[in-house]
């Protein structure tokens, strides 16, 4: 039996896992990655929740395996359009294939759109992505902040910026970063401002309790309404503690915005060229949410990772395996 070509759009953890599994099943995966290197967003994370292992422990073995298996990788390549038999790249190259796995992930919400939080306007307002990078590069401020506010749901569950969905992983990221901050600055007061705390994964709820019990991280139910700069560089935040029903005003040395995942702008173009369906959130709509959650509405086009919805890294890795199996199934049926 000849090896069948499967183009994988996106070389993050979803794409790499899919490629590796397809190779293990004897097929010929080809990864198209827009960036200059593989690894996607996970490469930029510092420690991963809930176990605090370095992100490199997840990404690097995958990258190494892709190399060892000799999987064909196109770096710095954008996909212009595709269907289930052909993928067209920005440089004009066309790749004929037997199936396509769309693993192009999602986009981090641009916190500048929530102008009231002052990101990009005032100093000392960060996104959770900034904090990951600063932690990883050891660039956190040396002087301990007295107070840090972590705001949940920035660009998630927010109709005002047209992002109604829950980004799923920010709650636990907030808990994780709060603990990291407390480890770094034991004397600082760290506040999480949340709407709901959604601890869906294994070990998450436990970590949430650990944060409160062992690290004295504070949780305030209420969103911050606005932030303004003070003379000394601090940020003044206004919020409402909705459990006590009282307005609250606090000056903090750092304001961290837990930015959510939103659908890629490319999705619209991809959906048009390949005849795929979008969900209301702008993410890709899977054939169904149960047995067909890695299949698209079109034959021969499959999804893995956050292209269909926000997911944790573990879930994405599982999907990589599932999608490879589904693709092989499909290819076998095609050949009868």
């Amino acid at each position, binding site marked *: 039996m000849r090896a069948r070509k499967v183009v994988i759009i996106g070389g993050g953890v979803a794409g790499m896992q899919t490629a590796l599994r397809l190779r293990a099943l004897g097929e010929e995966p080809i990864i198209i990655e827009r960036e200059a290197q593989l690894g996607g967003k996970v490469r930029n994370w510092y420690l991963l929740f809930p176990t605090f292992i370095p992100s490199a422990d997840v990404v690097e073995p995958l990258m190494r395996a892709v190399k060892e298996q000799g999987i064909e990788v196109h770096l710095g390549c954008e996909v212009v359009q595709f269907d289930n038999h052909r993928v067209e790249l920005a440089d004009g190259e066309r790749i004929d294939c037997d199936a396509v796995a769309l693993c192009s992930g999602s986009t981090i919400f641009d916190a500048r*759109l929530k*102008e*009231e939080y002052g990101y990009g306007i005032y100093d000392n307002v960060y996104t959770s992505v900034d904090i990951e990078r600063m932690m990883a590069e050891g660039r956190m401020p040396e002087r301990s902040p007295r107070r840090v506010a972590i705001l949940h749901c920035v660009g998630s569950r927010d*109709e*005002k*910026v*047209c992002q109604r969905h829950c980004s799923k992983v920010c709650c636990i990221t907030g808990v994780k970063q709060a603990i990291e901050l407390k480890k770094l600055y034991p004397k600082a007061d760290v506040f999480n401002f949340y709407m709901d705390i959604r601890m869906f994964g294994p070990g998450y709820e436990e970590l949430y309790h650990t944060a409160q019990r062992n690290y004295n991280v504070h949780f305030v139910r209420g969103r911050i309404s*606005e932030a*303004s700069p003070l003379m000394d560089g601090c940020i003044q935040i*206004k919020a409402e503690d909705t459990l006590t029903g009282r307005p609250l005003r606090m000056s903090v040395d750092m304001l961290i915005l837990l930015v959510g995942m939103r659908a890629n702008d490319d999705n619209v173009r991809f959906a048009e060229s390949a005849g795929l369906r979008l969900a209301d959130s702008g993410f890709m709509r899977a054939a169904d949410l149960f047995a067909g959650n890695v299949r698209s509405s079109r034959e021969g086009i499959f999804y893995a990772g956050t292209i269909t919805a926000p997911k944790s890294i573990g879930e994405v890795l599982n999907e990589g395996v599932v999608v490879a199996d589904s693709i092989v199934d499909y290819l076998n049926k095609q050949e009868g």
Partner: protein
Amino acid sequence: MNFYAPFTLPFIIGTIILFIVLAWKYVSWFVALTHEDKRLVAKGVPSLATLRSVWEVVRESLLHVRIFRIDPRLGYMHMSLALGWFLLIAVGWIETMAYMGFAPVPLQGHVFFKYFAAQGVVTEHKPYFDFVMDLLLAFVLSGVALAWFKRFSSRSLGMRRATKHTTGDRLAMSFLWFIFPLRLVAESITVALYGGGSFLTGSCGSLLASIFGERLLSYAFEPAWWLYSIALGGFFVAMPFSRYMHIFTEIPLIFLRNYRLRPREEKGAIDYFEVQSCSRCGICIDPCQLQADLGIHDVQSVYFLRDRRYNMLKQSVANNCLMCGRCEAVCPVGINLNTLRLNSRALMRNIPNERRYGYFRDIDRSEGSGKVGYFAGCMTLLTPRTMSAMERIFEAVGDQVWWADRQGSVCCGRPLKLSGETDSAHKMMEFNRSLFHKHGITTLVTSCPICLKTFKEDYALEHIEVLHHSEYIERLIASGRLVLERGDVRYAYHDPCELGRGGGIYDAPRTVIEAVGELAEAEHNRRNALCCGSSLANTAITDGQQLKLASRVTDELEATGAATIVTSCPLCKKALQRTAKGGVRDLAEVVAEALPRK
């Protein structure tokens, strides 16, 4: 001389009822006017305002100049009915006098003169009057034909959507449409039997005679005049209870308005004149974005006024309005639609709670001092890029600034006022007013057109000039204090409702944009500008519907090909950012960027 015939009875009864109802309405409304309003009337009557009003009555109640401006075909339709009928009555009066001298002639004698003349009241014949009267009748009939045609195809008369009328209005309308064709028939038969007439009644008469023969026509003679009289009488009875009440009411309204009487935030007797001046022409329907973009068809001003007039106004209708003023801008009667809607809301929702405002005491969080005060407003605090841009501009010109609300303050009060909570709104207004006076500023600059409008209209600030930041920046540029580097970026400007139609400020932001780059105009601009959809005044539509309105606006602005959308209202900016593909900036931001680098 006998001017009495049984067929005139319906007309006489109808006329009597009409005048009793009108007199009763006008007298009771006038009596109910406030003292202040009555004083204004007493002062206004012996002034030039009266002459101005007479001229305006001719222009608007007869000629319908404003409707002509909207669409000439529509204007002609309204004019032919109003002016034509008026002239029929006036020339008819002169005609009677020409025949009878100054002899006392009862009303029905004038109206049905052709009948009585044929019955031998007069002996001589004046063909030139026949000609003029025929001409006028033809003029009116052309209007009736257009009105009738408009019912089937409003689009051909420049209206995409016409008013959906109530049964009462349809009945009154049917009477009205029958009056003139019946008059034509009655007069034509009369001419056929007794001679006279001109190109219209004369030829119609010959035609009828040739078809039916004189014998048959002589049987139809009396019934035709009966029908004409019934149509007139029926219309007159229906008139004060239907939309046709506007025919007379617009006249006192024009006078009262020229005497400076206006509806206020509480309901008042002047409102009756305004509400019943609405002819339900439906010109307000097309510009309504709720109608055009969201398919909401029962809240437009014409329906709001109708519901209010018949005491069947629902809160859901009163609340479902952007108060963008697009309908007010085209209303041919010039009704103060926004104010009327506001005071309807106030009546429904104003439940003041004294204890809610205890926190006002000692809440002065203002900073700095200077002759220039800056009030950002809540929405600018939520779009701080605008405020930091203003900070850089103040710094560049070296103005000492008193920052009213940089650390938060009390709301200007307009959002509460717009939602009908006027008493609560006044609590906030009083607080801010004394705050502004306490700090001794002479100029108050705000970036928010919503605040601006209420500062100007409700605050009565003494010795403090209120400026929108676009006006302030324009002055700085004009006086040479602010020097900017002009780039070649194209900016598409979005007129905020509260600044443009609400405050009449169209040029200042445009002048400022032209000082920093190239100005691009959207298809709908200035007085016709579209609303961003996020108006504070509408508490009824959903977020998704707001989004739909916004995307229409950004589509239009982006169609100009400009890279950046500029507006001068923080609320518009927030709204448009949600659907714009490129950047949306406040005017202050683009100005701050054009400051020369040190």
